[in-house]
């Protein structure tokens, strides 16, 4: 393993760990479900992807082992994480979880009314 690849892998790992830490920090700090979902669905996605990529490059550089499963893992995470974020916030909204009291607008509130009007 050369020094360049070692530094590259270390930087990727640290970025991934740092982003996961920020996601956890955002979960504690942000005020309601929806804003927390922002932090969780974005930072956690890229954090895990960075760590998986670092693992992939480590085994490629150290053992010459091309682990296609790690690449598949990255692809699956990339596709499924935003869908999970969407479903959680949708379920929260439909079961009546209140938004933060300083929220500005809510177009979804009169969605049912609008859909009834468009059918007419």
């Amino acid at each position, binding site marked *: 393993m050369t020094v360049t690849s070692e530094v590259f892998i270390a930087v990727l790992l640290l970025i991934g760990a740092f982003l996961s830490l920020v996601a956890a920090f955002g979960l504690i700090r942000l005020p309601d479900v*929806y804003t927390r979902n922002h932090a969780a669905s974005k930072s956690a996605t890229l954090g895990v992807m960075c760590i998986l990529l670092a693992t992939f490059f480590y085994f490629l550089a150290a053992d010459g082992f091309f682990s296609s499963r790690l690449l598949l893992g990255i692809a699956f995470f990339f596709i499924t994480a935003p869908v999970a974020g969407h479903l959680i916030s949708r379920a929260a909204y439909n079961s009546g979880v209140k938004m933060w009291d300083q929220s500005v607008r809510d177009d979804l509130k009169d969605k049912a009314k609008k859909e009834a009007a468009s059918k007419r």
Partner: protein
Amino acid sequence: MAFQILLNVFLAFLWMFLQVSFSAQTFIIGYLLGLLVMLGMRRFFKGRFYLHRVWAVTYLFLLFLKELIKANIDVLKLVLRPKLNIRPGIFAFQTELETDWEVTLLSNLITLTPGTLVVDVSDDNKTLYIHAIDIGDVAEAVEDIKNSFEKAIMEVSRHD
């Protein structure tokens, strides 16, 4: 498009049979030669030459990656800022995309865009309800970004 790829694979096999050598190398050379032949004959196809769409998909993927990194920097700044001054809200976004998979792709892209998260899609697939983390300055900028997303997706799904 599927027909064009099938034809290209068929031409590659034809090349392999002409060479009487059945290896991956011969297949790749035959595929590239077939690509050249199809490029010359592309006015006989009904749709576009399929490499256009391959390029459009690649562009969309790179856009996806860029937005993901930008979104993370935004969340980073937001969470680590000492004073929390955000104004969240939900706004409605009218989309021109029609088929189910296009709308799915667009909402995935929006969810990974800085500061936005899709909360609901209306029953007729025309309106997306998007939760923005800071609605004041984002609402218009986001409109631009999504127009570029919508354009990139339409470029993939265009049939002519």
